[in-house]
């Protein structure tokens, strides 16, 4: 990218600079090594020398053009600002519908659903396993009846919705499709995302139900169904967020996410015999945005470049849209502190800015009180305003990929890419992600990274303001959101009413059909939709999955 004279000048300049530093600040030389949060070494200064091997067209280029380092869409945020998509859900469907209307009124531009643990795990609100968990971490959804309340007065043809749901993704998606139908919105118009990424569950998030192989089958069923019937839907959100939250480094987050993506693409091609270009444009991704500002920006750029190369060169995709890595970002929950929680507003802001400078398509910003509870309306509004202020007041949306060409950012992008390829190659050598998960490889890499980081914080090698430096003598009281204990009883009451008033024979018939589909290689979605229409409960459907496919038990790697 640079001619020989520029590089020679840079080298000579570097020597002059180093001599000056040694002369004026001799202890700087003795200073401990500085690193990103993921322990990648950071030099005090970067020059053309550091990116001498980069080729502008091959490695950086233009937004909208391979390898998309600078963005998938040619017009970037000048064409369309990222979606303000706040992850939310609490209590009953009414509670959540109310919060959704409030957030839409305050200017969010996309919906994102947080479900409670029983719903995430495929249990109804009256299951013994659901005791004390109903509505606590998100909204309780047992049947289509709840879902109809959840989406009341939300125009499903005008707003897109993401749903963070994994083992029961097929069920919640079916509910969404039927709820939309009842609004008069056809499947060809409805838009959104289901997370539906089981590999990262085994690696990190741990909401799992059935073992890996059948879990992948269900995912390929949904991808196939979406390809044929729901063209505007992203049937998977291949996620790094949870991998990062479990303690992974930025490199591990990137590598394991892309390796998961490779496994999914391979499975759909093999199992469904679909052409890669038929479904790849609807794959989407989900990353974390953590506290090391430049490391995160570099990670997002490396992600786009790597996936483009994987799709075009490894999978021979021909449609440029198959090469796009489109992603949602959430600011890092694990960076929030319990101590001095208002500080979290600043953390979320810098993390959000990194995601924006990294070109995210969609963004959730955490609320400052989320170390304590689900966010209050007040806290969630501040989080939303953070995005709006970045978009409207800072000017960062005025130019596309503003940090391109920065010696540091380009060097870091390349470095992260290089390290991530090492992991992907290692996983390939093991036989792919399923094999790697089976032997505990990503789980233990993450456990190691999490432990190292904890020790660094405990030793104050890594400073966390308010926790190991600038500690408050007394913490200010904080008003947090409390989920009413009546939610569980109300939800169980409604569930019983639905069970009483539905057509029992239709439910039984639908479940029988689903059982047969699971036992064959027929796509399960039509049967799930039929069951959902008949007001079968989420657990009734998931119990069939458990019956046919078995249950996965956490091997407990630590």
């Amino acid at each position, binding site marked *: 990218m640079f001619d020989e004279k520029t590089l020679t000048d840079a080298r000579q300049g570097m020597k002059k600079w180093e001599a000056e530093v040694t002369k004026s600040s001799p202890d700087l030389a003795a200073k401990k090594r500085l690193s990103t949060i993921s322990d990648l070494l950071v030099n005090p200064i970067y020059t053309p020398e550091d990116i001498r091997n980069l080729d502008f067209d091959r490695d950086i280029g233009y937004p909208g053009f391979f390898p998309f380092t600078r963005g998938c869409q040619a017009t970037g945020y000048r064409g369309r600002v990222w979606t303000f998509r706040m992850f939310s859900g609490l209590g009953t469907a009414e509670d959540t519908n109310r919060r959704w209307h409030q957030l839409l009124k305050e200017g969010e531009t996309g919906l994102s659903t947080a479900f409670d*643990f*029983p719903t*995430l*795990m495929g*249990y109804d609100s009256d299951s013994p*396993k*659901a*005791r*004390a*968990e109903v509505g*606590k*971490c998100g909204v309780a959804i047992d049947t289509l009846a709840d879902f109809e309340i959840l989406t009341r007065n939300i125009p499903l043809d005008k707003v897109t919705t993401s749903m963070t749901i994994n083992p029961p993704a097929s069920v919640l998606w079916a509910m969404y499709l039927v709820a939309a139908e009842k609004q008069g919105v056809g499947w060809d118009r409805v838009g959104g995302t289901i997370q539906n990424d089981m590999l990262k*569950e085994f690696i990190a*998030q*741990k*909401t*799992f139900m059935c073992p890996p192989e059948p879990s992948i089958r269900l995912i390929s069923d949904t991808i196939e169904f979406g390809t044929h019937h729901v063209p505007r839907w992203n049937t998977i959100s291949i996620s790094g967020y949870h991998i990062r*939250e*479990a*303690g992974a480094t930025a490199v591990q987050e990137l590598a394991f996410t892309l390796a998961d993506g490779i496994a999914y693409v391979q499975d759909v091609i093999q199992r469904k015999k679909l052409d890669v270009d038929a479904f790849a444009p609807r794959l989407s991704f989900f990353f974390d945005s953590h506290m090391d500002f430049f490391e995160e920006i570099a990670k997002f750029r490396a992600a786009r470049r790597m996936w483009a190369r994987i799709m075009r060169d490894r999978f021979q995709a021909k449609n440029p849209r198959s090469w796009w890595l489109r992603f949602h970002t959430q600011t890092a929950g*694990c960076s929030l*502190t*319990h*101590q001095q929680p208002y500080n979290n507003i600043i953390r979320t802001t810098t993390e959000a800015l990194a995601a924006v400078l990294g070109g995210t398509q969609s963004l959730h910003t955490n609320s400052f009180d989320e*170390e*304590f*509870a689900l966010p209050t309306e007040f806290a969630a509004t501040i989080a939303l305003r953070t995005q709006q202020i970045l978009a409207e007041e800072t000017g960062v949306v005025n130019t596309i990929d503003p940090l391109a060409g920065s010696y540091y950012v380009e060097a870091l992008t390349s470095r992260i890419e290089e390290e991530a390829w090492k992991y992907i190659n290692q996983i390939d050598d093991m036989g792919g992600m399923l094999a790697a998960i089976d032997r505990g490889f990503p789980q233990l890499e993450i*456990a190691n990274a*999490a*432990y190292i980081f*904890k*020790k660094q914080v*405990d030793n104050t090698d890594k400073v*966390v303001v308010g*926790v190991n430096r600038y500690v408050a003598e007394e913490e200010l009281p904080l008003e*947090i959101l*409390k*989920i009413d204990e009546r939610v569980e009883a109300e939800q169980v009451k409604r569930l019983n009413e639905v069970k009483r008033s539905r057509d029992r024979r239709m439910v039984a018939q639908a479940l029988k059909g689903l059982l047969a589909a699971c036992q064959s290689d027929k796509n399960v979605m039509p049967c799930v939709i039929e069951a959902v229409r008949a007001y079968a409960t989420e657990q009734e459907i998931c119990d069939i999955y458990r019956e046919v496919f078995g249950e996965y*038990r*956490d*091997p*407990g*790697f*630590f």
Partner: protein
Amino acid sequence: MGREKKLRVLVAKPGLDGHDRGARIIARGFRDAGFEVIYTGVHQTPEQIVSAAIQEDVGLIGLSCLSGAHLYLFSEVLRQLKASGAGNIIVIGGGIIPDEDIPKLKKAGIKQVFLPGTPISEIIDWTRKNVPPARRPISSGKKAG
């Protein structure tokens, strides 16, 4: 004179909550500090935890819950421990626990609650101070040591 046994610790995740980063770190911390650690993995019922604790003959149980179900789950573990005659096993807890719930948990029998940000060494030090290592009695006909 009895030979001192290493304290055996059970780190457990009750309920449906799968957030195990803290539990896994604490488990390692105990292991590195020289204790014998059993980690249950996620999605354990109180029954399973109590059964494991008794089977593994632990002196300390650490419960982790980030889903808000701690009041019910932790007290259920305590209740079942008592009912099984293992009420002398010390139980500590951590996770996402509002300040106002800590006195309730302690009243129920949770010996100490460790909140996010607590250094590993603080938990280890507390354990050494508050949890007696088990003593193994000498078996007849065998030399000690």
